């Protein structure tokens, strides 16, 4: 592993991702996510420069607009109306940090090693794409981890966003020729999705008095 701007950026993506996942203050978590998204956009930009593909600039633009501006705005819109502290997640902070770190390391290592199995293409097996793709999968796994372990609806949204970010990051590696407009569509879709989720979460809060997703089963009654 050798230092390169891209890897540095992706490291940033990882660290801020962990912060967004683990911070108990939702506002702080949102800020962390903002930074995370910025790193992501930076990664896109770096790839644009490295691979010299102009359409990736559209990606950067779209990522900045949606992930850095709109989604944090939406989250903020929610947070200022509701309690700012996350509901207690299923795992304690320390334990969660340990587990998450282990998960990230193991996952990164696993994916990095067996890249041929996941993306049997020429480009994906080479650095920095290889590490980058591993990071993308790690972020994806992180999102899943957040989704599974967190009770708070906003945290789930953030987890979902992380998951999406992972996916989008992998797109850069696997399908850099994807038209910019299509990517704009994808991220806009995610934005809409988040908007809907926030709306629903707000409704859940009104109904149940808490954003606890574990209590969603009560809605069936």
């Amino acid at each position, binding site marked *: 592993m050798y230092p390169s701007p891209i890897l540095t950026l992706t490291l940033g993506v990882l660290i801020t991702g962990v912060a967004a996942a683990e911070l108990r203050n939702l506002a702080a978590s949102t800020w962390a996510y903002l930074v995370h998204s910025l790193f992501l956009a930076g990664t896109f930009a770096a790839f644009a420069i490295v691979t010299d593909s102009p359409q990736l600039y559209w990606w950067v633009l779209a990522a900045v607009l949606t992930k850095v501006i709109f989604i944090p705005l939406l989250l903020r819109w929610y947070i200022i109306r509701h309690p700012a502290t996350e509901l207690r997640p299923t795992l304690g902070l320390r334990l969660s940090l340990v587990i998450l770190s282990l998960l990230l390391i193991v996952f990164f290592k696993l994916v990095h*090693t*067996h890249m*041929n*199995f996941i993306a049997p293409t020429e480009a994906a097996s080479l650095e920095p794409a290889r590490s980058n793709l591993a990071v993308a999968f790690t972020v994806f796994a992180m999102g*899943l981890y957040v*989704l*599974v*372990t*967190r*009770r708070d609806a906003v945290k*789930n949204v953030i987890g979902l966003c992380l998951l999406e970010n992972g996916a989008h990051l992998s797109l850069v590696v696997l399908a850099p020729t994807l038209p910019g407009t299509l990517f704009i569509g994808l991220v806009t879709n995610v934005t809409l999705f988040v908007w809907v989720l926030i709306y629903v979460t707000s409704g859940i809060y009104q109904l149940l008095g808490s954003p606890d*997703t*574990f*209590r*969603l*089963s*009560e*809605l*069936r009654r």
Partner: protein
Amino acid sequence: MAVIDLLIGALILLVVGAAVTALLAKRRAMCGYVAFLFVAVASVWVGVAAFHVLSTGSPIAGAPVLTIAPLNSSLVFTVDGLSAVFLLITSLIAVCTTLFSVRYMLVDERYSLVRYYPILLLFFASVISVVSVRNMLFFLVFWEFMTLASYVLVVFETDNADARRAGLQYFIATHIATGGILLATILLYTNAPVKSFEFEALLESTRALMATSPALIHLILALFVIGFATKAGILPFGFWLPNAHPVAPSPFSAVLSGCMVKIGVYGVLVVFTSLTPLSHFTTVWGVWIAVLGTVSIFVASLTALQQTDSKRLLAFSTIGQMGYIWLALGVGLALLRISPAVAVVALMAGLFHLVNHACFKSLLFLNAGAALYRTGTRDMDKAGGLMRIMPVTAVTAIIAALAISGIPGLNGFASKWLIFESGIVGGFEIPLLVFLVVVAIFISAVTLAYYMKFLGMVFVGKLHIGQEVERREVPVSMLVPQVLMAIPCVAFGVLPMLALKYLYVAANGILPAGYSPAFASLFGSSPLAVNLSLSGLRSGAWGPVAILVAFVGCLVLGYLISRMGAAQTREVPMWLCGEEHDFSEVRYPVHSFLLTFNRYFAKLYPPIPVPRLPRPTAILKLLDIDRWLYYPGLRWGERIIRVISATHAGFPQLYVLWMIVGAALAVIVLFSMGGGP
């Protein structure tokens, strides 16, 4: 205009009349008169057409009205001699009963007339149609429509539980009988060389089957005979009749007994003359028909003797008299191959009795109806001596009762006499027939006995009615039909040759050409006397004119003798051994009359037990597939589903977990399948 168009016109008129009367049903009296108008015109037309056929002797046929191609059948109205006889009696009865109904049906305002006149008119239309088609398919259609219409009229008084029960019994019994006829018809049709329901085609079918499968022919003929016997009220198949006839409105009882049951006879005649070639089958089934007829004569008449309900008595009497007709037909059919002369006379005797019975039985039902109209009861114990207030009704009733009991000089005697003559002479060939005739003659006396009872209890004797009964004759519109129907009773009695001349045409028409001996050689040439020559020799004689002249002479002689002493008349009270009783206390009850004799035959006509349908619940459980197959299956499915549904707690984290687990599994599987690095 062809003569047949009169018949078709009459049918159209009746159908139109049905519609018109249906619209007028709210205005009861007017509805009746309008119905009468339609029926009268239609009857005259039909009567003219029928009489035309009888006088010319040649059948008339119209053009096809309707064709059903898949079954090679077309509806053609045809009138031959036999149909003409039935058409004539139908017209007479139709006119008389409809006129009688006008006032009779005014009484009970609970029931809407929309169920009476329109149906009655359709009924007449169907009867006319039944006897004027020569296609078994349409015969059956009209036949069953006739049943349908008559059912509606039988249950006219729907509040009456007896009527309901009788109607149910009637329709089910006759419908099943029709099912048998249908089956027999189709069996013939399927074996026909030319697939058609025309009588001619079915005749060929019978001819072909006779050679190949006689058992099947016997089956078919049995179905036909039983089917038509059911309709004709022949016991044991006509058990519905004594229940159904009394409960119908009296004018329609008259139609039932006078007209509808006769169509069963028409059916049998058609089967054995138009659908079956002359063969030993005719002989065998002729004997069976005669036996059935005799059974009916015996059982029904002896049961009639026990009745206390006037209309029920008349209904049993109908069965008995139908038995006479069947006996005659049976004799005729049995001897058709052996002795044409006797057979022709027997068939004519049957037809003659049929015509006569149509006249006097309808008349009797009208008489009973008139009594019912006036007194409100059919129980002979509750009303009696009506001759005092209803002389015309009573006199016509006496004429009818004496005619049906076979008092010489009236028409019933003439036909019975012919039946006995032909039966006895036929007995020279088939001895069994003589015994049947002996039974018939014995029962002739029984008939006399129960009509004595009927007359004695209802009409003659001391007046015995409730206070509320109006003491006057029924309205004129009810008297005219009675008088009209009494006329043929007397006319055919005095001049039987008048009827025989036309019946010969009818009987001749249904027999193979040139088969029957000449009219004069059978009945002699004198129009005033029947000089019967059955086996070549002169075998019997009935000269009503001469004998009636002698009878009147003797009456005058007797009158002169009785006036010899110039006796004076004086009114005295009834002699009750010197004691004084109110008449109603000492009135002899109907039940006691002939009680000793009736004891011998009390069990002859047991009441038919109403079948109690068993309800085998065990089989029901077996058939409840839900219970032992589907619901248990469903419960098992539910159990499995419950297990699966436990994995769906309702919050998203769990689903994500499942997804992860699933993805991991998939990866592991893919990995282990060798696709891995």
